C-alpha cells in the first residue's frame, strides 16, 4: 500500500549490478535534458508565481505549490513516458509506439491522485495537521510530492509490482532510467523528512508552518536527487563504455 515511502538513508547503491538486458537505458545527454527540464520547470513555476502573482512559498504556499505541480505535471509525464519499458517492440510499427506512449501518459496521469493519496497518508501518519484550514495546502503538497515520487515510476514501470518493490522498497535501481526515478524520489522524501524538523522551533517565522519548510526540504532533496542521478547515469555510461572497448 504505502510502499513508496522510504526513509532509509541508503542512497549509496551498487552500480556494478547493472544488467544490460531488459531495463531501458538512456544516454547521459538525455538524462541531462530530463534533469534540466525538471529544474527549469521548478524555476519557471517559482518565476510565474513570483512575477505574475507576486506570491512565493511563504506568503501563499497553497497557490505556489499549485503552480509547481501544474508546471511539473506535463514535463514529468511527457518526458518520462518516453522511457517506458519495452519500447523496443514498437520499432516496427510507429502506430503501436504511439499507443504505448499514450498508455504511459495515461498511467502517469492515473498515478497522480493515487500517489498523492499515499503521500498524504504518510504525511498524516508523521503528524501533518488535518484541520480543514490546512486542507488545500495538504492536497497541493501531496500532488507535488506525487509528481516527484510515484508519477515517473508509474510512467516508466507501469504496474509491475516487482519493479516497484525493487526500486522503492529495496533501493536497488537497475539501469540508468531507474536511477532517474529512484534517486529524486528518495531525495524528495528524505528531504521532506528533514525539512519537518524546524517546524516545532519557537522562532515564530512564517516559513515554519506546514507545508512550507517540508516543501523546501522536499524540493531541495529532489534537486539533489536529480543531480546525483545524472552523475550516476554518467558513471554508468562510462563503465559500459569501458566494458565495450
Amino acid at each position, binding site marked *: 500500500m504505502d510502499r513508496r515511502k522510504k526513509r532509509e538513508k541508503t542512497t549509496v547503491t551498487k552500480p556494478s549490478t547493472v544488467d544490460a538486458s531488459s531495463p531501458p537505458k538512456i544516454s547521459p545527454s538525455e538524462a541531462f535534458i530530463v534533469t534540466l527540464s525538471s529544474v527549469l520547470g521548478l524555476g519557471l513555476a517559482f518565476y510565474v508565481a513570483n512575477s505574475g502573482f507576486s506570491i512565493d512559498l511563504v506568503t501563499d504556499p497553497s497557490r505556489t505549490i499549485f503552480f509547481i505541480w501544474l508546471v511539473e505535471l506535463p514535463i514529468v509525464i511527457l518526458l518520462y513516458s518516453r522511457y517506458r519499458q519495452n519500447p523496443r517492440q514498437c520499432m516496427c510499427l510507429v502506430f503501436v509506439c504511439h499507443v504505448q506512449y499514450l498508455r504511459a501518459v495515461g498511467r502517469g496521469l492515473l498515478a497522480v491522485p493515487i500517489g498523492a493519496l499515499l503521500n498524504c497518508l504518510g504525511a498524516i*501518519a*508523521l503528524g501533518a495537521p488535518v484541520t480543514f484550514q490546512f486542507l488545500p495546502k495538504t492536497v497541493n503538497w501531496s500532488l507535488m510530492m506525487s509528481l516527484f515520487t510515484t508519477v515517473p515510476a508509474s510512467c516508466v514501470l507501469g504496474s509491475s509490482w516487482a519493479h516497484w518493490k525493487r526500486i522503492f*522498497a529495496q533501493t536497488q535501481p537497475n539501469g540508468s532510467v531507474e536511477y532517474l526515478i529512484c534517486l529524486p524520489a528518495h531525495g524528495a522524501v528524505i528531504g521532506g523528512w528533514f525539512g519537518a524538523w524546524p517546524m516545532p*522551533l519557537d522562532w515564530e517565522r512564517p516559513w515554519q508552518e506546514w507545508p512550507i519548510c517540508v516543501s523546501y526540504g522536499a524540493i531541495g532533496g529532489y534537486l539533489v536527487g536529480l543531480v546525483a542521478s545524472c552523475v550516476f547515469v554518467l558513471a554508468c555510461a562510462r563503465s559500459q563504455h569501458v566494458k565495450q572497448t
Partner: protein
Amino acid sequence: MKEREIEGAARRRKITGKWGYTWHLWVTLLLHIAAIVLFTRGFLLTRTELPYYSNSSDVSESQCLYSSSHNNTTTSSWTKPAVNRLIIIVLDALRFDFVAPSTFFPESKHWMDKLKVLKEVVSKSPTSAKIFKAIADPPTTSLQRLKGLTTGGLPTFVDVGNSFGAPAIVEDNFLNQLVQSGKKVVMMGDDTWTQLFPHHFERSYPYPSFNVKDLDTVDNGCIEHLFPSLYEDDWDVLISHFLGVDHAGHIFGVDSTQMTEKLEQYNSILEKVIEVLEKESGPGRLHENTLLVVMGDHGQTLNGDHGGGGAEEVETAIFAMSVKKPPSSVPVEYDTSSCQLDLDGKNVCVSSMQQLDFAVTMSALLGIPFPYGSIGQVNPELYALGAGSWNLDVSQQLSESDIWIQNYANILCINSWQVKRYIDAYSASSAVGFSSDDLSRVASVYAQAENHWLHSTKKLRLDKRDIDALVPALKKQIESYFNFLRTVAELARSKWTEFDLRMMGAGIAIMSISLIFQVLAILRANSQDGATLASSGYAWFFSASAFAFFLLGMRAVSFLSNSFILEEGKVANFLLSTSGIVALRKSVVKGKLLKESVGFLLLSTFCRFGIEIGLSKQASTSAFMKEYTSWILNIASGLAVWNHAAEVVPILVLIILAFWLYKATSDIFFGWPRKIVVVCTILSYMLIIVHWITENNRYILAFMPESIGRIYIPRIVYAILLGQLLLLVFAQLFRGNSSDCKTNLVVKTTAMLSAWSSTVILLSGKQGPMVAFASIVGGYCIMRLCDIEDDAKNGPQRRLSIGPFPVMQWNLFATCLFFCSGHWCAFDGLHYGAAFIGFEEFMLVPQAIILTLDTYGFSIILPVFGLPFLVAMKYKADLGKHVLFTQLSQMYTTYGLITAIMTTFTIYCVTMHRRHLMVWGLFAPKFVFDVFGLLLTDVLICLASLYYFDQGKDAHNHN
C-alpha cells in the same frame, strides 16, 4: 569448536547462576543512582518549608524589649506601626530602566523615561518618596518571585512542603501575618495571587494570566477596581497586579510601540493614583498615613524573557512614597542613593535594595510580626519613609535622626533574633540543613551582636543620662546586626540559589561511565554469542541497528532545544511513525507481515491524535485541567450522544480486554498460582466497571452507599494487585518443570502484565482501556515485526540475536503512550486527581505511589515487564535457557541503555542551559521526569530480572 565454546560459556553460567546474566543490571542501577544523586545535589536546589508561624507574643522571647513599663503593655506587636495603610501596585516584569531616569544609563533608549510621574514625585519631595533598584533572586518567574516577596525567603525550584499539587503557599508569609493581625487585604489583577493565597483576601478581583497575547484584560480589570477602592475604607492593604508589560514583552519585546504605549498608560494611571492620595491626605482623611509602593516582581530581557539570573532579569525597581511626610530623611550613614540630573534638569536619587528585604520591611512598617521564614533585613531607607518610624513615645532630648536610629536599632534586634530563630529551626528540622561550619560561624556573629546589645546598648538606653555615648553605641550595634544579617543572606544564597558545578560535573562523569559500561556489557554478550552473530544476516542487522541509532540520535539531539522538549510527544511520534514506515518497507521486501506493519503505522497515526489532544490541553494550562484527568471526557463535553458513548465505550473495551485475557490464557498451561492471578485480574476489571458505573449513575446509588463504589472498589483493586504480586513471588518457589522454559517465560510475563494492568487502567480513568488496547496491539505488532527477517531459508536451527531496532521501537512506543495517556513532562501534567482514587484525604506515601503508577504505568511499568515477549516470540523452537536468558539480559541492557542515553542527554542539556530562561519552566521539570523515569526503569529491570531469570542450574538439561 563453536559448540565447545558454548559449552564453556554454559559451564561458566552454571557456576555463577542467574547472577551471571543479571549482575551488570544491578551495577548499572548503582551507577545511575550515584550519578543522579550527585547531579541533583548540585543542580536541583531544595529547601524545606517549615510549618512554623510567627506569633505576636513570640517577641517577648527575644532580648530586644526593654523592661520599662510602657513596653510591657504593648508586647502584642513586634514593632510600632509606622504607616496605617499600604497600597502595593505590582507591575509585572518592570525593568529597572523603565523607572530610573535615562541619565543613569550610558545610552538613552526610547522605552526609558516613560514613567515620568515617579521621577517627578521623587525630585519634588526626596524625603517622602524614593526609587530603589531592587535586586531579585533567581528563579525570576512570577510565581517564585511572589512567593519570595511575601515569605521573605529564597524559594527554590523544589520547595519540599505540604503543598502537594496546589500552588498555595503554606509557609508563613506577609499576607498570613496581615490576616492574623486582623488587617484586611484587597487584591485585583493577576490570578496567581488567588492561587497562592486562596483564603487571605477580603475581596479579590482575579483575572486569568495565562493568555500572553492579551495585553489589556488584566490591566483594565485592575483599573476598574483600583480607583473605586481608593475611596473606600474597608481595607488596610491593597494589592494591584498589572500584567500588561510582561505580556507586551513576551509578545513584542521591550523595543516595541506596544511596550511604550503600555508604559505611558501606566504613567497616567499612577498619576491619577498619586493625585487621589494627595487629595485624601489631610488629617483624619482616608490616606492620612498611607504608603504607596510601585514595584516590579522581576525584570525582563530585551526579548521579554525572564526566569534566569541575568542582570536584566533580576534588576527591577521599587518606588515608595509616603503620603504623610516624614520629618527628615534617613541618616547619611544608611543612605545608599546616588543622584543624577534627569533630562528635565531635576535631581533624582536612586537607592538600591534586595527584594529579599521587602517582606520584613513592610511587616515592620505595618507593625505586624515578621514572617517566620524571612531572612531579609529591614531596609533603613524604605523604613525611614514611614512617618511613624520617627516617633518615640518616650520624651527624650534627642534629635530626630537619633530617635530614628534608636527605633531602627530596636527593630534590627528583633529582625536578627527572628532570622536566627529561623536558621536554628531550619537546621534542626530539615533533612539537608546547613553545614555545621556555617552554622557556628553564623552563631558566633550573632553572639557578638547580642553581647553588645545586652551589655552596652540596652544599658545605655535605660540609663537616660548618657546620651552622647548612646548614639555611637547604637550605630555600632546596627553595624553588627547588619553584619549578621548579611552573613545569613550570603549563606542562604549560596545554599539556595547557586549551582554546585563540581557536583554536577561528577554526576555527568559517572553517568557517562555508566553508558560506557552498558555498551561494554552488550558487546561482551555479543562476543560470547559470537556464533550467533556471524551466522545472522549481517547486512540487515547492521542497517537496522544503524537506523535505530539514527532515530535515537535524532531524539537525543532534539532535547537541546526547549521547543522540542515542549513538543516532545510529537517528536517521539514522528520517529515512531518513521520507524513504522521503515518496517513497512522491510515487510514489502520480504513480502510478509504486511498486515502487522500497516496496523502499526495506523496505530501510530491514532497515537498522534491522542498526543495532539494532550498537547492542546497542555497549552490551555492548569486550572481547568485538574477537573478532567482523561481526554475522553474532554472531547465528549459537547453532545449528549458523545456523553453516552464516552461512558459506554471504555466499559465495552474493558470487557473485550477481559475476554481476550481469558481466551489467551485458557489454552496455555498455567500453574495454579498464575491461573489465580489471571482470574483475579478479570475480577478487577469487573470491579472497575462497577466503579465507573457508580461514579455517574444515580440509580445504582440508591442500592448502595456512594462510598462503596468510590472508595472501597479502588482499594479492593489495589489490594488485589498486592495479592497478585505476592502470589507471583510465591509461585516462583514452585517452578513449573513440566513446561519448557519458553512457554514458562510467556506464562510469567502474561501473569505479571495482567496483574499490573488492572490498577494502571483504573488510575488512567476512562481512557485507560483504550490505551491498554493500543499498547497490546502495538506490542503485538512490534513483536511480530521483529522476526521479519527470519527467513525460512536459514532454517529453524538458526539463532538470531535481536538487534536494537525492535527495542528502540518498543521504547518509542512506550514514550508515545506516556503522551497519549494525557501526560507531559511538567508538574501540571501530573494527574493529581488520580492520586485521590480510593482515598478521601491526603496521605503522602500511598498517594505518591499511586501517582507514580498513574504517570509511568503505561510508559515504563508495562513495557519493562512486557519486554520478554519480544524474546519469547522470536524463537519458534525451544533453544534452552542459556540462549533465552542471554537474549533477555541483552535486551534488558539495550532497553536500559536507550533510556539512559535519553536521560544523559537531558542532563547535558540542563547543564548547558542552566542559565537559560526556560530552565525552571521546561528543562528542570523534564529533568525531574526523565531522571525519575530512568531510576524507575532501572529498578524495574532489576526486579524483572529477579522474576524472570530462574536459577541457571539446569541450563544443561535443556541443551
